[in-house]
């Protein structure tokens, strides 16, 4: 279920070798914006979804302009810090406008849990992997079958050559960040009913999604979705049998294990060493 968020890392990584380190905060923004329109203003669900996704895509584009573009060319890792900076600013803004308390997001799909082997699932929780799979398929098709998707991958491989071939690089990177934030918006809307909406929900989601991205392989969309589903299942069972505290520890241990065995992820491709 974190696979959905982790796909956002994948999209920008594949295009620009940069990421929004505050992807989790973008999810939070999606949930908060959706809450504001759906619960706060009482808009219908479909309108809420559309408005939320548009706002999130714009946020992603804005983030790219402010926090990534100045550093993309320089080849420095400053984008890492600047996206974190934007994330904590966003968290603070959300805290000031939305408040510090978590609020429930109503959904028809979280009324009664389905029990599987001692661990409970909501229908909503099953919806997420399905959406995740669909989006993963879409992203795969986009990158492997469409001309524009291939162009984006070319940018990642060699920005200078891609630029010479007539690809508008800033626009390509901006597009990737918009798309990435849009996915975060979808994830925010889907996760809101399960996790409750809170200004501080971002860090932990972003972190776990990154763990998933590492486990699955940043360069592999299917790997990420598989890892996301697997991670979610492991978490549910650990939380069910042991405690919620053990859940984080097991998750982290998994990441370490993967890093030791396959630093480039289960289904990722090993990056060639450039000498």
């Amino acid at each position, binding site marked *: 279920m974190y696979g959905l968020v982790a796909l956002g890392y994948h999209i920008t990584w594949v295009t620009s070798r940069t*990421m929004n*380190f505050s992807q989790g905060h973008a999810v939070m923004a999606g949930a908060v914006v959706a809450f504001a329109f759906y619960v706060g203003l009482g808009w219908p669900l479909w309108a809420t979804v559309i408005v939320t996704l548009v706002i999130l895509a714009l946020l992603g584009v804005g983030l790219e302009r402010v*926090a990534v573009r*100045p*550093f993309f060319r320089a080849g420095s*890792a*400053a984008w*890492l*810090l*600047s996206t*974190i*900076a*934007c*994330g*904590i*600013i966003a*968290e*603070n*803004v959300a*805290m*000031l406008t939305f408040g510090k308390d978590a609020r429930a997001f109503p959904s028809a799909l979280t009324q009664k849990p389905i029990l599987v082997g001692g661990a409970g699932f909501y229908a909503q929780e099953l919806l997420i992997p399905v959406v995740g799979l669909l989006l993963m398929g879409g992203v795969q098709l986009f990158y492997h079958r469409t001309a524009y998707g291939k162009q984006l991958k070319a940018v990642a491989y060699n920005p200078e050559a891609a630029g010479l071939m007539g690809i508008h690089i800033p626009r390509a990177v901006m597009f990737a960040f918009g798309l990435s934030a849009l996915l975060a918006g979808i994830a925010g809307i889907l996760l809101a009913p399960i996790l409750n909406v809170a200004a501080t929900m971002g*860090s*932990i989601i972003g*972190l776990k999604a*990154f*763990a998933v991205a*590492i486990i699955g392989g940043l360069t592999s969309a299917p790997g990420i979705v598989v890892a996301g589903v697997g991670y979610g299942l492991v978490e549910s069972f650990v939380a069910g049998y042991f*405690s919620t*505290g*053990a859940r*984080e*520890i097991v998750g*982290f241990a998994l*990441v*370490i294990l993967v*890093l*030791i065995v396959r*630093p480039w992820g289960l289904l990722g491709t090993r990056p*060639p*060493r450039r*000498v």
Partner: protein
Amino acid sequence: MARVLCAGLFVAAAALPLLTGNTYYLYVASSVGLLTIVTAGLNVLVGFTGQISLGHAGFYAIGAYAAGVTSVRLGLSPWLGVPLAILVAAAVGAVVAGAALRVTGPYLAMVTIAFGIIVEGILVEWVAVTGGPGGIFNIPKPPLGQAYWIILAVAALSLILVANLRRSAWGRALLAVKGSDVAAESLGLSAYYVRIVAFTVSAGFAGAAGGLFAHLNGYISPDSFGLQASILFLLALLFGGEGRVAGPLLGSVVLTVLPEFLTALTDYRLILYGSLLMVSIYWLPQGLVGALAPRRGEETGRGGAGERGSRGEEAQGRACAERQVEPQRDPAGRREEQGSRGAGERGRDEAQRPRGPEAQGTGETLLTVEGASLAFGGVAALADVSLEIPVSGIRAVIGPNGAGKTTLLNALSGFYAPDTGSIRLNGTPVAGRPPYTIARLGVSRTFQTAQVFGELTVLENVAVGVAGPRLGSVLAALAGAPWTRRADEAIRRQALSLLDAGGLAEWAARPADALPAGLRRRLEIVRALATAPRLLLLDEPAAGLSPAEIAELDAYLIRLKTTGGPSVVLVEHHMDLVMAVSEHITVLDYGRVIASGTPDAVRANPAVIEAYLGAAA
């Protein structure tokens, strides 16, 4: 002058408890000290090796809880608790680093965030030891004035230790790994190991600060050690100036005092941090210290060969604390530069003499490649390559673009492992061994795009090669132990004599970044020779050089050969150079050896003519 200023600052800070009994001021000043300790340590990781950690609040927490548990749960003395805090934090740091440093850059940042959150989780869950969300109470507290003095002393000590480290072979190795991990490995350093040591040291500092924090506060709870604290640590360092010895101090002062003035804005604290972070990334890439101190590179100019005199001025431009803690460097440097030529010659002879007795004499084989093949995807970069390299002389490898020349060098130096076939160095199989192992066996190299360690001086670049993997104990380096300093003196002397032999002595004190391209290549060769290799691999050393510089390189290579230097493999496109210096030429095309022999034989070979001109002769 600057030293006096720093000492005065220290005395003024020490006098604070005598001037004011205001506990609030003392508490804030103590917090500055604690933050200085953490960031001084973090500087070793972030500033020196260039790796970012967002999990140091975790080590801070481990230190604090180690001290708290020692004195409250076990009832032992706080004098035991704080050293224990350092040990526990450093031990955990070493274990975490071993796993986390298999990745670098953004991966590492995220893994460290995860570590911090896990620690926070354990603090909350492991109630029997940590007291859970409530934390630990009644930790013994010395009077605030005394606590402040202890913290101040430790903070000053931290800055001195880190400055010692920076001056040592370890410090150079850390910055070398930051500058180019590939080049560092080609000199025998394991980048992974060096980073682990840096991470462990920085974790130890954070643990010390945490232990002191526990005794300053008297009470600790998980709330103090969240991701926000990690971000604050990093922010203080970046704002003050990473890589600069004084950066942590300045950053800590600003980042502790500023929020105290803005207590009315507590709700906006994250916005404040975020904005400061953006400000320092955008406008202060070298931090406050960097912005206040004159820029090193600009002042010395970028490459005018006539500016010999500016070396002294450049040295004067260093920041206050750097000067304070490195009193010996400048005089020593000058002494070395004017030092007797005789000593220099001796040093060089020593360095250039091949190591093993078996390397003496000509005609013997140093390195054997048999049937090496390597494919990238479907493209065969090397196809069944076999060749022998004798213990002396220059062998050139030529071929059209994409023929696999650089791939061959990468395979020889361990950066690529051939899919099949064997590579033996003096009979030892080396195919697939890591680059630093092969470098330690006596294979050194340069790179197609010159990889100098930009933040080190030219002299230090060579010193990295001279020291190679022999870095000594990192604790001795931190403490500035006399034997470490003596060893370092010897290394610097030898590096200088090598620079002298390579015609770069006048550049010794410049940052390597400031060298013009041609001299960078020469520095790379001198640095590679500094490891006293048996085999030197040169990857297009003449690329981008002017005709005059190529002539110099030509003479340099011939001098190297006639003075008993190492065996050389030269990958090059400039045919005049290749024909002039090499005894033997191997021609590659599409990864295959298509010709091999003396320059004249190769020049007449129809297959070679076809490969270059594209048509059968």
